[in-house]
């Protein structure tokens, strides 16, 4: 296997079980909303503590002087504003409220959980990452100097220029922020199109995809939902045409359909079942040697699905199969594209 790392925002971690798995790193624009939520939570927490202490102070003002509650509020304000992130990240396994809401988590750069010292460092250094401060009074001298906005340029530049997208606090603490979402479903791409299964039944019984081809097929089928039909044909043709030629299919078989059929045969059909006879070949044969037998069936129908019958009047669909085999498949291809466009929209998730 090649050792070239993909150009991506993932980072590989090797566990004590000697397994390497990938984490998806969280960039600045994923972390900013989480941080804003944290600011709000912190504010709410301070207000809540203030209100509780204030009410307690009122209720017990006969026995305890109110100044104790005032001092308590000041200390609580200090502790919450400086150590909110530290305590939450230590006690909730690298997550604050904002990180929990946005599916982020702080971990060590080696994949270990964040430790107390690391959490202290990265949360204290946040104010250095938020530097430089911009005061509104710089832009408009009428405004009072109290409105100060941290620009966060230091942290942003640092995040953009490090491989693990760490801000200064992360660098000093040896931590990184990764995406750790709570729920996802197992994405097994199913081929819903019955024509793919039908086409797959015409593949030779000893067809086995190599490792790289299996991967290519899977990638194509997973991604094809995001492509328009013309792009699908364009991408699929690169692999589908040589295969089609080798198997002996007619050259007007839709490349996209052929890729799906190969995927179906590789991933979704049990080979034992296939060896035992399996499903009999269904539908009109796409094989080149069957051309004379199936001469009266318009091939465009195979390539473009059952709905094609509604468009029989289209001149391209009525072209004789022999002519297509002899010439280029450009014309019937156009017809197939037009019609698959309406079919594929139903398949999209």
């Amino acid at each position: 296997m090649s050792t070239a790392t993909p150009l991506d925002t993932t980072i590989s971690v090797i566990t004590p079980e000697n397994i390497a798995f990938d984490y998806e790193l969280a960039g600045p624009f994923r972390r900013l909303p989480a941080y804003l939520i944290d600011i709000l939570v912190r504010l709410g927490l301070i207000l809540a503590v203030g209100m509780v202490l204030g009410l307690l102070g009122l209720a017990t003002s006969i026995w305890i002087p109110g100044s104790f509650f005032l001092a308590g509020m000041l200390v609580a304000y200090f502790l919450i504003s400086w150590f909110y992130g530290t305590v939450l990240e230590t006690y909730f396994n690298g997550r604050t409220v904002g990180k929990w809401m946005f599916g982020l988590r702080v971990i060590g750069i080696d994949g270990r959980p964040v430790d107390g010292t690391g959490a202290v460092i990265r949360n204290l250094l946040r104010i250095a990452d938020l530097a430089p401060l911009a005061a509104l009074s710089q832009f408009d001298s009428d405004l009072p100097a109290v409105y100060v906005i941290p620009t966060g340029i230091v942290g942003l530049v640092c995040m953009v220029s490090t491989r693990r997208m760490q801000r200064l606090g992360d660098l000093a603490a040896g931590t990184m922020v990764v995406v750790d979402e709570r729920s996802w479903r197992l994405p097994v791409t199913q081929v819903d199109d019955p024509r793919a299964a039908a086409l797959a039944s015409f593949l030779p019984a000893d067809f086995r995809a190599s490792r790289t081809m299996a991967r290519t097929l899977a990638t194509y089928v997973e991604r094809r939902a995001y492509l328009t039909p013309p792009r699908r044909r364009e991408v699929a043709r690169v692999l589908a045409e040589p295969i089609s030629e080798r198997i002996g299919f007619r050259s007007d078989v839709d490349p996209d359909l052929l890729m799906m059929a190969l995927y179906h045969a590789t991933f979704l059909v049990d080979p034992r079942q296939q060896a035992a006879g399996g499903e009999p070949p269904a539908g009109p044969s796409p094989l080149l040697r069957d051309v004379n037998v199936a001469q009266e069936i318009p091939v465009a129908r195979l390539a473009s699905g059952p709905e094609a019958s509604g468009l029989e009047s289209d001149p391209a669909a009525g072209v004789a199969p022999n002519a297509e085999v002899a010439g280029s498949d450009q014309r019937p291809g156009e017809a197939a594209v037009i019609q698959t466009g309406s079919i594929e929209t139903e398949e999209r998730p």
Partner: protein
Amino acid sequence: MIIASLLESRQEQWRELEELCDRLEVRGRAARGDGASVLRFASLYRAACADLAMADSYHLPPATVAYLHRLVARAHNNLYRSDRLDPVSWVDMVFRTAPQRIFADPCVRVATLLFFGLFALAIALGYQQAGFPGFAEMVLGEDQMESLEKMYEEPIHGSLDHYVTMAGFYIKHNTGIGLQCFAFGVLLIPCLITLAFNAIQLGTAFGYMSRLETTGNDNFLHFVTAHGPFELTAIALAGGAGLRLGMGLFSTGGLSRIDSLYRSARLAVPIMVASAMLFFLAALTEGFVSPSSLPYVIKALWAILSAGLISFYFVVLGFPRDFVVRPAIEADRELIDPLADEEPVGEYRGAT
């Protein structure tokens, strides 16, 4: 291997692992007496790891591999959880690690020299009106000088209300400045500016207020004596910790810049913890002792006592005892790399 049959056999276990992850995440950690599910979790996690390792030879499609990566990552995060702060290690850090680092760290010395040097200089310049006319006015400004004089016009007397509130305020305000000084240390220059600014301003205020002709000079000395040692040392230490952090970026000692920053941050934390403790003690003193109407002798004795405690902490607790036992070469190594005894960052990789 055909994915359909493989998934059929494995999917059940993956789903079970996800459910266990859900439960662990919601509850924090496994409930008491729930050992069986923890064991089950561990074996399911190992099975998922094995599946991921075999993914390539199984010809799994990329989306399934991506799913497995996330499943293993999620289970990994639940298996290896962050440690909660351990009080024993915390005490060890405050009473053993911190003083030794403070004693050995040249950055602390530089910051202390800088702070107290500028402080003493500013006192001298601010005190001598004849020698340096207008210096105090330039640094403090007329408004601040007036408000200082007004503050100490009245003899010091306080009530319990006043004490408690002020102690709370000093904890919040002064410790905050110290932490800020530390954090800006990573950018080095803001840390030095904060340190120098505080030294010069405090020194000038001290010098100006101790002039004989200034109104309220008695009351001023009455107020600042008691908490002076704690507070000034705490500021210098915060600056020293910040300097240690920032120096990691420049003086790398052969490490890469990022590794060096990581190492110096770990070295700086105990110093900062000691500084925060001193800020806290200073705030209590400033809140309760300084504004009280206790006689000056007691406040001065408290100042001497606190200075003695700090010296004891730095010198007696901080003196590197290991030097006595270890051979000189060992000791040198320790000086060069104080983190050498702690486990290296990359060790995890090879662990089984």
